[in-house]
């Protein structure tokens, strides 16, 4: 039996050997034990190997937030592959981009998403497509349920080492296309143990998550549960809050992970119909800053819980957390580096800033990504020379200052990424979708403050002479190409957009001049 996990999949094999009957995962359609997850993952690994998947091959997992998605991640790893999970809201064009960009050899999907993946895979004749269940599968797509029955439920021999890639996590960046963040087995195992150390998870815990598994924060709810030998209760969405609350109570969950938008919705609900979850021991926030005014309400909802405010980015998964004892004392701080890592505030030239001064956050530790997939220039911009020879630091896009005790305070982003519902929205990606309409002359996309979303996506558009396009048609063009959370909430068509003295479009300038129009559009 494996004692120390050297590859990410080892955490599943270790827990399945120690606690085979323990409940690993509860989703809307199933309750599965560690034995069942491990058996499924091993069978899937053999099936992938039989279809030519080799060490280092990328396998895209395009499934809704359920147990098969969670198990498929381990199946890909056990096959020696690199998992690439894609949000199930993703549209065909973007899925096709990710399949091509990652050079995926296989796609694991489910029948409900055939409408989206079918047009994407038609362009990729060499791609192996395996679908979890379904009666009428498109031509060329194999049914996983039928294939897996014949495969052995033992792990195939492993040849990967800890330095190999385990995952490509696609994230929106300042360019028009998402970038694949390369994580190794080592970087993910390291950050996992660091997170489980400060959150103090044990095998008694029942973690509750509504976060998608394609997103670092969501993925780590599952990985934390497996590493601790705990149970993950996984929801597909927060669309029906009452159902979600009932599930939390029925399942006696002890940990709740969410983002400010969900807390805002819970607090609005609580104001009408009071809520209380006394079984919760750990409550976490990440992905966007938690407004200080939410904290008293969150305390009422979770009277027994420690509240962790956390900060991170896909490039290192997690950077900082605030000691829960300080939640009220330093409500605007995200705290300090997670265990075993270091955070440095440096200026543009890489020199330390004086205490209290604003600096660019740099992350040091074994949890950094290896870079962006196939993008050495972009990688060199963010992985900069570190303290020792051959070492790198992650230069984040965020400006912070530090208090006398070393706790960090977010000041501003160094780029124009919008954070809506805790998701990153690239203005360029939205603008590209708008430019797909030939009638559009110019588009500028910005984030505007929104009480529930954090920031709402807002598009300012000018049209070519005599062209006719409505705001609705622009939203539709976005809806066909982008995930729902990226579709602009507001679209304003203007005769002209303001320019800088150099004649460039400036999102900042547009927001200054026309921001007031958004209130009228709302």
């Amino acid at each position, binding site marked *: 039996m494996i004692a120390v996990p050297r590859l990410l999949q080892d955490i599943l094999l270790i827990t399945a050997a120690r606690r085979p009957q323990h409940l690993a995962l509860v989703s809307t359609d199933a309750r599965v034990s560690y034995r069942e997850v491990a058996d499924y993952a091993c069978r899937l690994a053999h099936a992938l190997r039989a279809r030519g998947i080799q060490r280092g091959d990328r396998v895209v997992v395009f499934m809704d937030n359920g147990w098969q998605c969670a198990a498929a991640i381990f199946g890909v790893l056990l096959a020696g592959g690199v998992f690439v999970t894609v949000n199930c809201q993703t549209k065909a064009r973007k899925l096709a981009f990710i399949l091509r960009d990652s050079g995926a050899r296989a796609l694991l999907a489910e029948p409900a998403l055939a409408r989206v993946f079918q047009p994407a895979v038609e362009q990729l004749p060499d791609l192996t497509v395996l679908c979890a269940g379904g009666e009428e599968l498109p031509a060329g797509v194999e049914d996983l349920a039928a294939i897996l029955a014949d495969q052995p439920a033992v792990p195939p021999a492993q040849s990967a080492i800890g330095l190999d890639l385990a995952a490509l996590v696609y994230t929106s960046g300042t360019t028009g296309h998402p970038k694949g963040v390369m994580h190794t087995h080592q970087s993910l195992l390291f950050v996992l143990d660091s997170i489980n150390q400060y959150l103090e998870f044990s095998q008694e815990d029942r973690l509750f998550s509504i976060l998608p598994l394609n997103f670092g924060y969501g993925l780590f709810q599952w990985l934390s549960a497996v590493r601790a030998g705990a149970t993950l209760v996984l929801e597909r969405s927060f*669309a029906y809050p009452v*159902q979600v609350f009932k599930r939390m109570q029925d399942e006696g969950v002890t940990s709740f992970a969410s983002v400010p938008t969900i807390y805002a919705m819970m607090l609005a609900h609580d104001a009408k119909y009071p809520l209380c979850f006394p079984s919760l021991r750990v409550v976490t926030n990440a992905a966007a800053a938690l407004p200080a005014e939410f904290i008293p309400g969150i305390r009422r909802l979770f009277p027994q819980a420690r509240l962790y405010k956390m900060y991170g980015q896909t490039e290192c998964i997690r950077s900082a957390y605030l000691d829960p004892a300080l939640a009220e004392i330093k409500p605007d701080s995200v705290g300090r580096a997670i265990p075993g890592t270091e955070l440095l505030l440096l200026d543009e030239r890489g020199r330390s800033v004086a205490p209290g001064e604003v600096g660019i956050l740099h992350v040091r530790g074994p949890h950094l990504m290896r870079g962006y997939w196939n993008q050495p220039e972009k990688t060199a911009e963010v992985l900069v020379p570190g303290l020792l020879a051959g070492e790198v630091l992650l230069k984040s896009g965020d400006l912070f200052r530090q208090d006398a005790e070393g706790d960090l305070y977010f000041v501003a982003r160094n780029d124009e990424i919008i954070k809506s519902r805790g998701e990153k929205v690239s203005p360029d990606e939205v603008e590209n979708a708008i430019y797909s309409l030939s009638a559009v002359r110019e588009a500028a996309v910005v984030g505007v403050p929104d009480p*529930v979303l954090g920031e709402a996506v807002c598009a300012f558009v000018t049209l070519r002479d005599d062209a006719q396009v409505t705001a*609705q048609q622009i939203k*539709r063009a976005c*809806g066909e190409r982008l995930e*729902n959370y990226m579709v602009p909430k507001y679209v304003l068509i203007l005769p002209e957009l303001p320019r800088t003295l150099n004649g460039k479009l400036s999102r900042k300038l547009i927001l200054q001049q026309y921001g007031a129009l958004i209130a009228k559009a709302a």
Partner: protein
Amino acid sequence: MNIEKKIRCYILENFLFTDDESVLNNDASFLGAGLIDSTGILEIILFIEETFDLKVFDEEMLPDNLDSVDKLVAFVKRKQAAMAAAA
């Protein structure tokens, strides 16, 4: 406009951004088809409350009542019948 027509128009206009009737099946699950997400359901609730002058209670916010055009139509009709009976 009848209830079904009003609901279809609203969903088409606000979530599918089109007036092409053929893209929306009345029995398609909003969540399952990825048409609508968490904040979208709240918008639908606001819409039916305003349009049909009714109140959606917390315990009624369930997929059985809200997750397709057919379910929404049936739900609005039940609510209207209950209000008529109480009046």
